[in-house]
């Protein structure tokens, strides 16, 4: 069994080492992120059976939990670690071709730091440590959004930075308030004492956390940075931002809401919030002509759906939410990669400029199509089991509010279908029929990640049972709060 701390330390160490490696050979730098996340992926997968059995706790520096920082590698954490490592590995293959002529090493360093931050967020059991890793994630994201250095990138990065650091500030105030009242920073320890004080003094940190993490999780109306940032970043980074960063933000919200505060009676509010986010995301995406903005708004919509699923606060709902989360991560990463490759080919982000791509870039178009179908939730792709589970959970819940909101979810899904199918039609059927000869070769480094993402989407769409056990265990971890607390603070 590998120590979970290595999932953070190995990529971090390699990121630190890149400036030194640069002296040895500039060529090998681009392979370092792939190496790091391959390591994470392999060992995280091997750790999964262990954490399914019992949570793995790791102390840092040899101090028992309330005193020192601890890592909690439960099913939820490991689920995210595997996801981050998987996406990190595949997207880093895509980046074997330099994104920009200069500064390749900085790109790789920032990329690794971003994903290391994400890994740290999902593994740590300490609220302040979570904040620190969250900041790594955010800062690396700001920098990477601006990485291309063009007008759009810089503008988006500034806006992202202003909103993001406002959110971080709010989180910090919340941490201060919690420490002032409970005198501890360990999440399990705080969770054990949370109901011992007056409500308002706990409620305010809660809303500060929700707002702060909500900025990164792209809850409506905190998500104004997202369409700008996702559309201006390099496509690989858009994939990571959309596939990992906002999900990790959502993880933080979940951790706070379920584990830290153990809320049970505000779920109606979150259900509403989720559906509002979903509807607004899909409506905005519907009227976009810029493909990356469209995908970005679609991410907002998906986050809304996830929030809805998690807010059902039942095993079914949370398991369904996690399934949908994985499906969104894989699908959206694939879509951004495919779209990015097509944008690189046409030099334009307008959807209309993708005419005839089905002939010129058949594989990329196919990958995009499968990603789009999966997003809409068509079988046999991965989106279907996710949507199925969420609907099942919602109907199982059976409350009037849920059922009414369900109608809006259905409407939003139809809208989502409409704009995704529009792009698919443009890819294959718009404009004149091109002769077969005009086919652009697929670079190996582009082909492999897209192929693997596509394969995963299909395999998990046909055999969802491969991961459902893990998802159920994750749902249990989030819902069984006393057990979580007891296992850390005996």
């Amino acid at each position, binding site marked *: 069994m590998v120590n979970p701390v290595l999932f953070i330390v190995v990529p971090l160490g390699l990121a630190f080492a890149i400036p030194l490696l640069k002296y040895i050979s500039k060529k090998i730098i681009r392979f370092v992120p792939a190496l790091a996340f391959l390591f994470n992926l392999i060992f995280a997968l091997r750790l999964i059976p262990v954490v399914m059995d019992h949570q793995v706790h790791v102390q840092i520096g040899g101090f028992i939990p309330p005193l020192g920082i601890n890592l909690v590698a439960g099913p939820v954490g490991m689920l995210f670690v595997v996801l981050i490592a998987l996406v990190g590995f595949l997207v880093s293959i895509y980046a074997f071709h330099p994104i920009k002529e200069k500064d390749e090493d900085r790109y790789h360093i920032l990329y690794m730091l971003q994903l290391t931050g994400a890994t740290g967020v999902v593994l740590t059991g300490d609220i302040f440590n979570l904040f620190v890793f969250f900041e790594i994630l955010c800062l690396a994201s700001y920098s990477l959004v601006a990485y291309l250095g063009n007008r759009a990138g810089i503008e988006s990065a500034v806006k992202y930075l202003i*909103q993001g650091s406002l959110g971080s500030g709010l989180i910090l105030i919340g941490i201060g308030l919690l420490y002032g009242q409970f005198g501890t920073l360990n999440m399990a320890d705080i969770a054990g004492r949370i109901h011992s004080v007056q409500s308002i003094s706990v409620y305010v940190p809660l809303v500060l956390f929700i707002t702060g993490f909500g900025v990164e999780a792209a809850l409506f109306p905190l998500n104004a940075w997202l369409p700008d940032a996702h559309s201006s970043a390099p496509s690989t980074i858009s994939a990571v931002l959309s596939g990992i960063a906002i999900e990790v933000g959502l993880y933080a919200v979940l951790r706070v809401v379920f584990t830290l505060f153990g809320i049970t009676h505000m779920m109606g509010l979150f259900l509403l919030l989720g559906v509002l986010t979903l509807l607004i995301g899909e409506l*905005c*995406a519907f009227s976009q002509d810029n493909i990356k903005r469209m995908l970005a708004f679609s991410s907002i919509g998906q986050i809304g759906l996830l929030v809805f699923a998690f807010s059902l606060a039942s095993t079914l709902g949370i398991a369904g939410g996690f399934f949908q989360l994985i499906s969104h991560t894989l699908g959206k990463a694939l879509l951004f990669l495919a779209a990015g490759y097509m944008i690189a080919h046409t030099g334009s982000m307008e959807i209309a400029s993708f005419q005839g791509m089905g002939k010129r870039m058949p594989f990329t178009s196919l990958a995009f199509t499968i990603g789009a179908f999966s997003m809409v939730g068509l079988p046999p792709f991965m989106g279907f089991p996710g949507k199925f589970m969420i609907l099942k959970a919602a109907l199982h819940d059976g409350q009037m509010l849920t059922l009414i909101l369900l109608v809006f979810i*259905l409407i939003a899904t139809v809208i989502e*279908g409409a704009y995704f*199918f529009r792009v698919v*039609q443009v890819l294959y059927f718009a404009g004149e029929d091109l002769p077969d000869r005009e086919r652009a070769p697929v670079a190996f480094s582009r082909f492999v990640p897209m192929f693997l993402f596509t394969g995963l989407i299909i395999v998990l769409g046909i055999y969802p*049972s491969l991961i459902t056990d893990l998802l159920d265990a994750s749902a249990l971890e989030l819902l069984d709060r006393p057990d979580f607390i007891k296992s850390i603070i005996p």
Partner: protein
Amino acid sequence: MKLEILLAVVFGGSLLTYLLGKISKRARDILAILVLLAATAGIASLYGRSSTAILCTGFLDFPLVLRIHPFAWIFALTIAVVGLCAVIFSWHYIRKKGRTDFFYFMMLLVISSMIGIVLSGDFLSFYIFWEIMSWSTFLLISYNREEAIAAGMKYIVMSVAGSLVMLVGMISLYTQTGTLVFEGITRNLNSASSGYLQFILILFFVAFGIKNAIWPLHVWLPPAHSEAPSPFSSVLSGILIKIGTFGFILLIYGIVQVQVFVNLGHALFNVRNLLLLLGAVTILLPTFIALLQDDAKRLLAWSTVAQAGYMILGIAYGTSESLSGGTLHFFNHALFKSLLFMVVGAVEFRTNGVRDLNSLGGLIKKMPVTFAAGLIGVCGLIGVPLTNGFVSKWLIYHTLIVNHSPFLAFVALLGTWGTILYSYKLIHHIFLGQLPRKYEQLNAAPVSMKVPMIFLSLAVVVFGVLPGLPLHVINLSEIGFGMEPLAINMWGVVTGSGTIQMLNIATALTLGGIVLWLFFRMGRKNTRADQLDNYAAGAPVPADRYQYSVKFYDPLTSMIAPYLKDTADNFYSALARGIRNVGNGIRRIYTGDVGNYVMYIILFLAILIFIQLYWKVW
């Protein structure tokens, strides 16, 4: 043949066809035909069998079950046969176009998934195959580019909406009964309240109604059928929309049980009456809208909508005779409508894509086989005796009249009257009348098109004379649903208030025909006159002023046209525009001014704090 193997053959065959196409086009075409031949043979070998098989034990903890029974058998066989005909028809049709591998792949995928749907034994696999069918159909409808794109869009949006509604209904059934397997649902549904059943039925009616093109949900069908490539139009019209019919029968007879269905709800307003009403509207409006069409395929498309109404009437009526009528009409319609689409497709193929009725004419001399096929198809559509449409329509009329539903019977008859009008328009405008100059060098349809057309024409006639063949299978399936079977024999049906025996009719007609033939034979010999050798008010009409048949039913159509607006379509278009406008409006909240964005964050925080101060949620 085992069901799993059957599905593996068709799905695997589809993929293999696609891959083979990368190597050799000819081999691909042959393989596609072989796959469907194998499927047809496999399904045929399952005749009369009732069995289930487990496809997969745990998809999200649900078993995926396949089952075969006579009711599914007749649908599956029809799908395979019509699919086979359409694939043979494609041989020449598709050769000139691009993306042929893709065409074959999707064509086979659609057919495979339809076979999957009718063979599925639980709702989850039903839904999965249903959705595969939906998106592959979408890709094929869009295949022709240009206007087909809008048609495909309309189709897929409605389809996704419908299947989501179905998903909700299906999961709701699961939460009610704890299973998704059809038998299990039937068993556990006894305790469900009448209100709940109606709710579920309406959900499923929306889903199936969209596929089956019931009146307010039909708007995707006319553009989709007319813009799709013709072989696929015949699949669409012949079998794909019948999957909706299949769903209706399955739901009403297989799951809810017909006794429960008939007695549901209010005396005046219940889902059955609603369905009957919609069926009547679906017969009436589209029939006369079809009359207004000048596009051959669009005319047929509207006709399909109208004919679907007959099936709905038959199914929703809920007696064993009406069910026989509905199911038989499905079977017959699959034969003659796919035949008619092939006829139009053959014409379109030879004239390089001309479908406008007003610019065609006189093709009888150039394409005689096609004409004969078209004539037989049209006769079937109208329900002329000795063609198959006659028996099924007779059964439906008979039910309606015997059970005292004069209004519905009247509507059905009125629909047939309209059918005659537009059918004649179709056959006349294409094949009769004046041959335009530009078509004088036209060739007859290629063999690959003739073969399926002849086959289907023969089928139309054979099943018209021997309706007992399909009715026998339908009887078996009715027994499966626990209903009283009809008294039938090879030539027809015996009922208490009337009997239909095609043997008698055939004999009578044959005798009559012989008499007529003798009569004409003995009368004066016809003289052939040159086309220009005639007179109009004493003066010969110059060749260039000769009137082609345009605006055929002008007085009638100008009278009824104002009442035949496709309001449903306008409504959906307005809805789509409205949503787009709302989206355009809403995205203005992302003003680009970061000050506003920060304001949103603070606003969110303030609202959350306000909620606590005001309502004390914690």
